[in-house]
């Protein structure tokens, strides 16, 4: 278990450097936050809300205009007259939430009786209702201006999943983020080489595979945590997971392993730490682009598409997207999955062969 000893050492070397570790784990968090705020949608924008005014009284109209004046809300115009219109909008994705002002609202207000309101929302977006309820309640209380019982009834509606960008983005970002790991994996090895420590280890009976596994294993927790961050923050930002989370996790984990292997190969070849950490950027961003991290690559020229198809990244994104947001099982992504595993094996074999060569320069 020589590789285990080497990996224990590297684990300590890595995790006893809080700054470096902070970068490593902070990176996925920063990526996913920035990107999902930038492209994911609703988080900080006013809540886009539909209003159904079944009451059609002066009082209800006044309440609607009161809602329209609240910056935190963006009332969709025109105001619906019947609930069926709003429901249709909700089902087709035009709306995520609407407020129903039921018949008798005006009367109840006049008589100072209990007032009922209803909020119906897309169940895939529970965050939205949580943000909307307090706003609507505050507006209603302000409007009524006198203490009357106010009920806001919440209604979930199961809605066919729409292909929101966030659902596309999160798996793409996760793979991109794992690709960025390539820049850090070789670091310890390159530093050890510069300081002669790697040479020292090479005078022990440790085999090339011991080195490759010994220097990669410590990054496995980093992959797991990163994937968890991508998916976790993704969900908070509105990613709707309907498939097998475990399977999606596994797919991302394996592409992570591929990236570790690539980082290791660069660590083996690099002459300096700068080389190992700067050089990968040259191909990471283009590869992420052509593999479809941020936008669909269906329409790309066939040559580019071919390159992307031959590499593992596109397959990881496609497979994890399919599992997460379309709910398909292993059977449907089997080909992609085996392709990824195959790549992981090939990358590690190449790594070991290259390291073996570097052992006797």
């Amino acid at each position, binding site marked *: 278990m*020589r*590789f285990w*000893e*080497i990996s*224990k*050492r590297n684990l*300590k*070397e890595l995790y*006893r*450097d809080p700054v470096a570790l902070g970068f490593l784990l902070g990176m996925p968090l920063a990526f996913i936050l920035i990107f999902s705020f930038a492209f994911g949608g609703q988080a900080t924008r006013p809540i886009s809300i539909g209003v159904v005014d079944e009451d059609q009284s002066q009082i209800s109209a006044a309440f609607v205009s009161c809602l329209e004046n609240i910056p935190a809300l963006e009332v969709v115009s025109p105001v619906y007259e019947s609930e069926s219109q709003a429901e249709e909008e909700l089902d087709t994705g035009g709306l995520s939430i609407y407020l129903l002002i039921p018949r008798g609202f005006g009367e109840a207000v006049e008589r100072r009786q209990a007032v009922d309101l209803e909020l119906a929302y897309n169940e895939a977006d529970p965050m939205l209702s949580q943000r909307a309820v307090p706003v609507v309640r505050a507006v209603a209380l302000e409007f009524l201006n006198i203490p009357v019982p106010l009920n806001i009834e919440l209604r979930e509606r199961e809605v066919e999943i729409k292909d929101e960008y966030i659902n596309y983005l999160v798996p793409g970002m996760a793979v991109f983020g794992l690709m960025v790991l390539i820049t850090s994996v070789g670091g310890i090895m390159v530093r*050890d080489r510069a*300081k*002669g*420590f790697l*040479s*020292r*280890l*090479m*005078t*022990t*009976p*440790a*085999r*090339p*595979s*011991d080195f490759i*596994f010994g220097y990669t294993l410590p990054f*496995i927790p980093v992959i*797991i945590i990163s994937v968890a961050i991508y998916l976790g923050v993704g969900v908070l930002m509105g990613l709707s997971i309907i498939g097998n989370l475990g399977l999606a996790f*596994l797919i991302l*984990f*394996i592409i992570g*392993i591929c990236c570790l292997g690539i980082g290791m190969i660069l660590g083996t070849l690099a002459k300096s730490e700068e080389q190992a950490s700067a050089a990968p950027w040259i191909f990471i961003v283009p590869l992420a682009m052509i593999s479809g991290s941020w936008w669909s690559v269906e329409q790309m020229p066939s040559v580019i598409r071919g390159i992307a198809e031959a590499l593992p990244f596109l397959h990881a994104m496609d497979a994890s997207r399919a599992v997460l947001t379309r709910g398909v099982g292993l059977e449907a992504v089997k080909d992609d999955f085996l392709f990824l*595993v195959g790549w*992981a*094996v090939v990358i*590690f*074999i190449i790594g*070991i062969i290259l390291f*073996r060569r570097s*052992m*006797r*320069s």
Partner: protein
Amino acid sequence: MCPCLSPGLVSGSSFGQYGTKLEPHTIKYAIIIITLLGEMRLTSPKVEPAKVSDDLAIQTLNLTKIFNSLVAVDSIELNIKKGELFALLGPNGAGKTTTINMLCCLLKPTGGTAKIMGYDILKQPFKVKEIIGVSPQETAISERLNCWENLSLIGKIHGINAKELKIRSQQLLETMGLTERAKDQVRKFSGGMKRRLSIIMALVHSPEILFLDEPTLGLDPQARRAVWEYIVRFKGEKTILLTTHYMEEADFLADRIGIMDEGKIDALGTSTELKISILEKHTMIIYAWNLTQKVINEMRGRYKEVEVTDGTMIITDKKLDFKEIVDRLHSLGAIVRSAYIKEPTLEDVFLTITGKELRE
């Protein structure tokens, strides 16, 4: 056999004071397959230890290393006996480190080969690595580990069991005076402390053959003594190949010394043998009055080298006869105040052979 122990250095001072379930099966199998592939390629071809003369621990055969066009090691032939302590003495860039790196299978020779305990460095590198311990020239330690962890890393890679490892580590830390700081991350250590740790990392698995590349570089005199004393303990027991710039280190420690320069071993032998080999380098220093030009000319006619600087005459030649020279000077009219003959030192040997001064 160490004819060169100078008594001053073996002082009686006590040296003791220095002292996962996460992976799916596919990945598991992939790792196993890759490991097997790796091992297979490396363990073949199986070659039996060659029959070399049984008492040789290290034998180089035309060992050569050429970097681009620079000949760093020039077909050296070196035979080091089992249990011998051999010192390679040479100036910067002589090729000492390159030689050691080839012997411990870090560098591939451009030509020739070497056998370590009968194992060929080209064909059986991993056999060689099992029996050697190397203390590299640069301090090679893991900065964020403590002493124990550094030692245990090397020990465990060599397959030493935990209990034995602990005992050995304790002993070694004690010898080098590192016990008190043994639990600190070594990045907080001073250069000398790091150096001491680096040396004992070569010893923790009790290797049969020890390569020490400038083991005392950057150590204070006290620590240097401790290292010497420790190395002396292994004399006769382990085979040690040591490189150094320090004349007195080679003189004190080594059974035999090889003087290396520009990739070649120019002279080889015990300290005494080397000194004898340059016996013509005897010098006589004479302080005298009345060293006239006549006296000087007369002496220059008789001896190989004669230098005079106000009142001091230095004569260099093979075998100098003290009485004869003094008598001759007197008969020529010079008045000798005092005179003495200087025996050659290793320094002189070095200077004569390589034409260079050592760094320190």
